[in-house]
């Protein structure tokens, strides 16, 4: 919940509104009336009418004042620096004029209007969060300087953009901030945000009112207001259209008349809205009718306390008792991405699983991926956990030597653009948490703060500023105390300190810190007791990192699952665990039946009915085997279970074994003893079947050298694939599937070599000259520039957002053993040069699809040749030809992805 601030409240009526004791009636549509006045074609930016036609705007607004509106919205929907850039007007000028007009029209209160920037934020568009924040801050300050009483942020479709606007207004003005988003008939914004997610996120950021506007009429909006109100820790606002827009003879018309509109608004008022008005198609008559409805209703409901004050706290600060002016607010622990929310309402039994797999502690592959900047690996981990029904994803990227704030930000950006689950930002570095929380499109969970005074002072302001929820660890300057009561005492201090920063207790979860049963056996029961005590005494949610309990014991999943069940019984709400483990899923799924969360046992019946109990029957051998056969496994997509490797495990064993007779590659003397294996590998590669190829590779590795498998089988078969593609026997997806299948084989060999390397770190004997070396041992330790680097930088040039071709090139190059640094799409020339310099890359691949962006390609080539004379550039893309490549000074032209591997092989071959 946002840091409390001192509001400038300009009238008694506004004060009553902010306390939830009075309605506020805003005005209705402006565009419709501007059009009726024949002014809609005067300017491309209609806000300029404030400067050129002030009397006409005042006349429209006066009609709203006369109709009974309390608050007039300035005509500044588009008055941001992006939209005004081709005009002579400044943002400040437009707001000053617009506010003066509204005053002149007799407005009792004036709302400084702020609409969307019109540009898309990253990752879909080019605008950064900080740029959006600056744009909105300029508008909000201009509105305050112009004498507005309220800042009204409206018609937002992107939650992140709305967040930037609310933050900018809250942090740069002392005005009350109202914010509305616009929803479609499916009850979501374009980007999939629900009213409840918007309300949770924006009210936590400190908006005084949150709500909905535009798109729909009052009848359609009423159920959405009903969904929004319980999640809004603020006033609830609604400004519907006069019905759904309809085309009639090419004109947009709205059908809901004033009387019908006002009647339909009753349901919205009943649902909890106290700040109301109209949007497109509504007129002064609609507002007049709504005025009559409001005047006929009793004043809105009484104020409720957010939560009972901490019973034993000697001094609760005013912030902890901040009233919530919305009587429909239901306190809940809520974490939300832009698309999905996990909400645990106070007093309701519900558990949520936090997936722990994105954490480099003890995970070498993940650590290497982080060091190599391979964010795709993390996406695969995230997607696998999503399929395994994790509710929240923990994201920890703490690797010594890496810039954690930058890396956590990058990873969070990527994950929120690919996986809908809400994220837990897991870091001990408050700077990293702040950087990631700021750019997060939603309401993140921060893990963690602890009971140390310095830590509370460093972390809680960040949590408050960005409206996060937070996990508090029961440790302090004296370490982790052994008893439940001592843990409770620290938890209490955390909850109280949070309240001092304006963070209500429903936003806090406490982690009582699991100790290993093998080392601290007596404490296990204390931990469970602490969970119960914390929940009873403080009324907060609880978190536990479950798997610590089994450290040092055999059969860890068995111990963990048993502890998990016990902890659920003690009151655990959010276990942090590996959701890919079927045993844990079984415990969670079963507990959700027992605590009533799985309504009607529906999920349990769907998933477990008719599935054999793994303990029944002859197969019940080791714990490992029973875990693998557990019914939960069937719920997820099997292809994800292995993380980033193979995509085709579900298809394994589909076809019969290929015969040596039809083997498309020669069997070398090294493999003369196993011609069938060579034929099988080649056949799997040609068929694009990754899982069986990986399996066959693993088998062959038991008797043969990995490097030989690469050089004698993989490389020749990739050449065959390339030839088939060239002569048209294969088309692109077949080329890709084959390459991907071979990559699964490479991964097996790489894993084996890494294991061997770890076993005998100093006896490095691998041949450093072959392609296989780079493929198999590209590790972060070697990420520093070295003259022999075969690294290749690839990017889609600035202005171009088509990256499919570049992705294909990347994948094939990786298959040929080249370490590829993928900069993504729409990459600025200097960023490409900088990345190549940093990596010591001497070959750069550029892609462009559209004729309009080949200029950027030429510019990039010039910059590379100027600043990195040793580097060469290869280009490709739909519109690029050899002639064109020559013309813009490219060193190489690749007509397709297969060609790019030949260019690269030749380039580095000649250099060697």
């Amino acid at each position, binding site marked *: 919940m946002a840091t409390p601030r001192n509001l400038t409240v300009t009238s008694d009526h506004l004060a009553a509104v902010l306390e939830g004791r009075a309605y506020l009636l805003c005005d209705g549509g402006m565009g419709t009336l501007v059009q009726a006045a024949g002014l809609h074609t005067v300017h*491309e930016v209609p806000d300029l009418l404030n400067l050129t036609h002030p009397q006409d705007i005042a006349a429209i607004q006066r009609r709203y004042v006369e109709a009974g509106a309390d608050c007039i919205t300035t005509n500044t929907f588009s008055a941001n620096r992006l939209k005004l850039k081709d005009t002579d007007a400044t943002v400040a000028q437009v707001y000053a004029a617009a506010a003066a007009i509204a005053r002149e029209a007799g407005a009792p209160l004036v709302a400084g209007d702020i609409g969307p920037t*019109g*540009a*898309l934020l990253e*990752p*879909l*568009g*080019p605008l950064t969060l900080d740029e959006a924040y600056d744009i909105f801050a300029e508008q909000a300050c201009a509105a305050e300087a112009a004498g507005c009483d309220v800042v009204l942020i409206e*018609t937002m479709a*992107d939650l992140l953009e709305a967040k930037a606007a609310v933050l900018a207004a809250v942090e740069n003005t002392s005005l009350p901030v109202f914010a509305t988003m616009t929803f479609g008939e499916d009850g979501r914004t*374009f*980007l*999939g945000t629900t009213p409840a997610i918007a309300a949770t996120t924006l009210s936590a950021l400190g908006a005084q009112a949150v709500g909905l506007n*535009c798109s729909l009429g009052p009848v359609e909006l009423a159920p959405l207001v009903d969904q929004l109100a319980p999640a809004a820790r603020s006033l609830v606002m609604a400004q519907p259209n006069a019905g759904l827009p309809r*085309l009639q*003879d*090419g004109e*947009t018309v709205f059908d809901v008349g004033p009387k019908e509109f006002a009647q339909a608004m009753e349901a919205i008022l009943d649902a909890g809205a106290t700040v109301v008005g109209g949007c497109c198609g509504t007129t002064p008559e609609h507002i007049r009718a709504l005025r009559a409805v409001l005047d006929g209703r009793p004043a809105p409901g009484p104020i409720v306390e957010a939560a009972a004050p901490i019973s034993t706290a000697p001094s609760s600060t005013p912030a902890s008792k901040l009233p919530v002016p919305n009587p429909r607010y239901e306190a809940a622990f809520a974490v939300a991405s832009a698309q999905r929310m996990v909400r645990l309402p106070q007093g309701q039994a519900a558990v949520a699983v936090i997936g722990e797999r994105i954490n480099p502690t003890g995970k070498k592959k993940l650590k290497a991926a982080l060091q190599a900047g391979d*964010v*795709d690996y993390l*996406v*695969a981990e995230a*997607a696998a956990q999503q399929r395994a029904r994790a509710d929240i994803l923990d994201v920890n990227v703490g690797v010594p030597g890496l810039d954690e704030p930058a890396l956590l930000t990058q990873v969070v950006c*990527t994950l929120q*653009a*690919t*996986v*809908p689950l809400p994220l837990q930002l897991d870091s001990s570095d408050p700077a990293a948490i702040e950087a990631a929380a700021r750019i997060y499109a939603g309401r993140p969970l921060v893990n963690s703060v602890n009971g140390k005074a310095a830590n509370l002072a460093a972390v809680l302001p960040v949590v408050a500023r960005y409206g996060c929820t937070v996990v508090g660890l029961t440790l302090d300057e004296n370490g982790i105390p052994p008893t439940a009561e001592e843990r409770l005492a620290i938890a209490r201090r955390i909850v109280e300190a949070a309240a001092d920063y304006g963070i209500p207790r429903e936003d806090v979860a406490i982690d009582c810190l699991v100790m290993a049963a093998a080392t601290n056996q007596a404490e296990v029961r204390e931990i469970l007791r602490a969970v119960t005590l914390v929940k009873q005494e403080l009324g907060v949610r609880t978190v536990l990192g479950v798997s610590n309990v089994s450290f040092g014991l055999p059969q860890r999943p068995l111990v963990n699952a048993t502890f998990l069940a016990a902890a659920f019984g003690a009151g655990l709400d959010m276990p942090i665990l590996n959701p890919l483990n079927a045993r844990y899923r079984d415990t969670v799924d079963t507990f959700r039946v027992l605590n009533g969360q799985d309504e009607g046992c529906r999920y349990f019946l769907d998933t477990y009915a008719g599935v054999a109990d793994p303990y029944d029957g002859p197969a019940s051998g080791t714990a490992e085997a029973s875990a693998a056969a557990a019914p939960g496994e069937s719920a997820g997509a099997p292809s994800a279970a292995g993380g980033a490797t193979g*995509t*085709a495990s579900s*298809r394994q064993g*589909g076809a019969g074994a290929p015969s040596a007779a039809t083997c498309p590659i020669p069997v070398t003397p090294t493999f003369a003893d196993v011609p069938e294996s060579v034929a099988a590998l080649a056949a799997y590669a040609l*068929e*694009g*079947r990754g899982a069986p190829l990986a399996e066959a590779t693993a088998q062959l590795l038991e008797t043969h050298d990995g490097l030989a498998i690469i050089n004698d089988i993989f490389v020749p078969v990739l050449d065959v694939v390339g030839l088939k593609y060239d002569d048209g*026997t*294969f*088309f*692109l*997806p*077949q080329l*890709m*599937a084959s*390459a991907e299948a071979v990559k699964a084989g490479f991964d097996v060999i790489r894993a084996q070599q890494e294991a061997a390397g770890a076993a005998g770190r100093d006896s490095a004997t691998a041949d450093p000259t072959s392609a296989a070396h780079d493929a198999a041992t590209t590790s972060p330790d070697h990420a520093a520039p070295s003259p022999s680097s075969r690294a290749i930088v690839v990017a889609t040039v600035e*202005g*171009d*957002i*088509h990256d*499919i071709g570049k*992705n*294909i090139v*990347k*994948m094939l190059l990786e298959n040929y053993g080249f370490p590829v640094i993928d900069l993504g799409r*729409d990459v600025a020339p200097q960023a490409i040069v900088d990345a190549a310099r940093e990596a010591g890359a001497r070959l750069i691949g550029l892609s462009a*699809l*559209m*004729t*309009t962006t080949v200029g950027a390609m030429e510019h990039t080539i010039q910059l590379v040749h100027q600043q990195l004379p040793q580097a060469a550039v290869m280009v490709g893309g*739909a*519109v690029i030809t050899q002639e064109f490549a020559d013309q813009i000074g490219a060193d190489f032209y690749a007509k397709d992805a297969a060609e790019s591997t030949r260019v690269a092989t030749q380039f580095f071959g000649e250099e060697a």
Partner: protein
Amino acid sequence: MELTAQVDIDEALAFLGHRGQALGPDLAARIQRAAALCEAELRPRGVWQTLPWEDARLFLTGHDLAAHVDGYPEVVLMAATLGPESELMLRRESALSATDGLLVDACASSLVEQAANRLTCLIVEEAAARGLTATSRYSPGYGDLPLTCQPAFLAACGADRALGLRTTAANMLVPTKSITAVIGLKPVLDAEGEGVVVPQKAPAVAAGAPSRSAAAGGAGSATQDRCATCPLAPTCSLRAQGRICYGNPA
């Protein structure tokens, strides 16, 4: 409005350069999965707005479109999109598997194409009800109709507010799986004998519209005609198959 559309797998394969190669069971299953994923996760939407050509030509510049709608006093500006969810899905799929990313991308291209066809049908049907006949679709970036018209185009047809469509600095549409196009309208009576071309990919239109309008030439001649001014024509793989991209090269 929502648009009912399904992935045309043959079309998706054509976007991928398929020329009759045997797919094998694995690849065929992956393409089916990609198509099913697009249809399950994405909801194509569209919007259109009718304008007098006199107003529209202020921001829809160039000779080629003017020639295309010559004699048509009204134009419809239409936009169809798979929505921002498509961007998330494409990013996720290509991060998980480059091959699946490619297949899903092609299926999404087909889905938005089919959605645009569906929207074209609706526009032509409504025009027919008003006694109007329609030209085929004509997209920005095609011929000498510059991509720089996209921001004004989106504002004029309401696609920015209704669909959340935006443009990049280089005036490409975001989400990428989006199509904007112009359709000319004129009274049916004037269409007599003037060879109005009915959209190639809209059989429902051909069925619902006056049958004479379908007589203006087969796909081949239309392709040559449409692509005459396209800078990508010499290398376009769709054109080689006798298909039209309507200014949205795959």
